[in-house]
């Protein structure tokens, strides 16, 4: 209908399947994020480290390339092992924290600031779908930064080393995929919960770092004063690091976790506590979201 016919008319066209309507939210969010020059540059820059790692893997397996630089024995300096992949995951996960601190706070707070939630939820669209849609924004962005490049590097190494290497080191791929997903889940829920409760975006972003670093520092203080390791339960980087160690190496770890996500040998807590604490953190975030994501505020 032409716009000059300014009259109301009912809609008679088709409808999209209900199950995929939550994907409308990330589509709009990506359009908005794409407009931010800083974010685009940061996002592109976050792929530099995986690129360097890919180069290292390539050079490791290419003696002639090493010869060009006159460093035939350089392949002994860096080994493509569990530390290498944990380092990749650690670096990328730290960048993911920065990205989540930048993107996360702007997800829910603009909807809450002017009561737009009542309009979202007045449609055949549930609170769970709303949260899922918002979470998808972060999950997609953070996945592309963490497990996707991690698995590509694993695939490259496997391609150059041979299938046997892949079969022998399947745990690396498993650790990268599951470990990154755990981190993404924690980060996304934390970012959304803070976005829902803290309307001022810079404050919500700062709080993300606060939860990560300040709580960790507080835990370290408890450890130091009480001469215990239980303060690590407040340290998200420790919790994630200990879970990653288990995912990468099983029950006999040989490393101190990943860069930025250290769980030093000899300072371990029972692994179950790490899982329970992370699950508890996710539960608290979901509770906070459930309290805030409502169409109307009810004054009791």
């Amino acid at each position, binding site marked *: 209908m032409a*716009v000059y016919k300014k009259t*109301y008319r009912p809609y008679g066209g088709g409808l999209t399947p209900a199950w995929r309507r939550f994907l409308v939210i990330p589509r709009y969010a990506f359009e908005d994020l794409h407009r931010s020059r800083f974010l685009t540059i940061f996002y592109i820059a976050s792929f530099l480290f995986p690129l360097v790692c890919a180069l290292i893997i390539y050079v490791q397996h290419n003696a002639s390339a090493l010869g060009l630089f006159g460093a035939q024995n350089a392949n002994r300096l860096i080994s493509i092992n569990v530390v290498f992949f944990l380092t990749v995951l650690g670096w990328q996960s730290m960048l993911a924290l920065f990205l989540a601190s930048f993107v996360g706070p702007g997800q829910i707070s603009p909807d809450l600031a*002017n*009561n737009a939630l009542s309009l*979202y939820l*007045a449609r055949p669209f549930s609170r769970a779908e709303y949260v899922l849609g918002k979470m998808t924004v972060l999950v997609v962005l953070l996945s592309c930064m963490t497990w996707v490049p991690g698995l590509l590097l694993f695939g490259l190494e496997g391609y150059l080393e041979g299938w046997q290497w892949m079969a022998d080191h399947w745990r690396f791929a498993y650790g990268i995929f599951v470990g990154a997903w755990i981190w993404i889940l924690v980060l996304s829920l934390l970012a959304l919960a803070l976005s829902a409760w803290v309307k001022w975006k810079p404050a919500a972003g700062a709080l993300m770092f606060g939860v990560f670093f300040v709580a960790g520092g507080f835990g370290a203080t408890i450890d130091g004063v009480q001469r215990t390791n239980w303060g690590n339960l407040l340290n998200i980087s420790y919790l994630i690091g200990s879970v990653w160690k288990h995912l990468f190496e099983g029950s006999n770890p040989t490393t101190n976790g990943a860069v930025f996500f250290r769980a030093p040998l000899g300072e371990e807590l029972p692994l179950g506590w790490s899982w329970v604490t992370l699950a508890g953190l996710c539960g608290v975030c979901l509770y906070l979201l459930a309290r805030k994501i409502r169409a109307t505020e009810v004054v*009791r």
Partner: protein
Amino acid sequence: MSYREVMSPIVELDGLEVRFGSRSVLKQLRASLTGRAIGLLGPNGAGKSTLLNTLLGFHQPFSGTARVFGRDVRTHAAEVRSLIGFMPENDAFIAGMSGVRFVRLMAELAGLPPADALERAHEAFFYVGLGEVRYRALGTYSLGMKQMAKLAQAIAHGPKLLFLDEPTNGLDPPARTRMIQLIQEIRDRGDLHLILSSHLLRDVEECCDQVLILKDGNVAAFCNLEEERRMNRRFLEIETRGGMNGNFLEAMEKLGCETAAGAQGRIKVILPEDVQVRRLYEIAAREDVQIRRLNHKRDSLEDIFLKAMDSKTEGSANGRL
């Protein structure tokens, strides 16, 4: 549109009770709303918005049921919401988003494919008179423009039932007139039903054919304005001069009229169905009485509302006047 479609209930309330904590906000509401345009009237805090929010599934009924187009709002919430367009009372928008993009987003969430949603968003903006500002961020809109943008998002997906919660709030007289015109136009096209919640009697009177009046969470009155208007056509108020009013009254009563004489020649008359007004003039001429003024006295919505506010309502009353 068939008679059955017109008369089948749009909203049915059957002992609906909604509580916030221990406080009962809606108390055992019973009503069957069938009108094309239904007004929800009541003083502030009467439960109008709570009723709309309950029909949208925002609040769970404590007891009783509410059905929209025959679907229970508790068990078929998503289905019910797919039929509804909602214009909330308070500001509701995303400040940084342009108007047309916001309406498009809302239409897509209602299930429209992106291309259709975009087309409808543009149309809706032109329809409400904001075509020229549709690319401006919603945060920069005036209050009146925000109200119109809320109406645009409520109608863009082509709902079957439109909830308008205080649509003229904060509008200046020209903007209010425009809003009322739009509502009347939407109503008269006959494609959808609408429920208009307001504490402004004039808005409801101008737009609605049925009124549910709430008071303290109870149904204080439920009336069909069209029927009331028809009935009230038989009520007359006459001002007379000269002659013997007593004879004139007697003659009218012989015709079957009910009369009540007031001061200074004023008489209230209820005409029987089969008596035409001209018969009164004939009698007046015969009795040498001048009829100086004759008004069809009708209960205005204000009268109905005031009666409802004065009456003691029972929790389970149908509240018919």
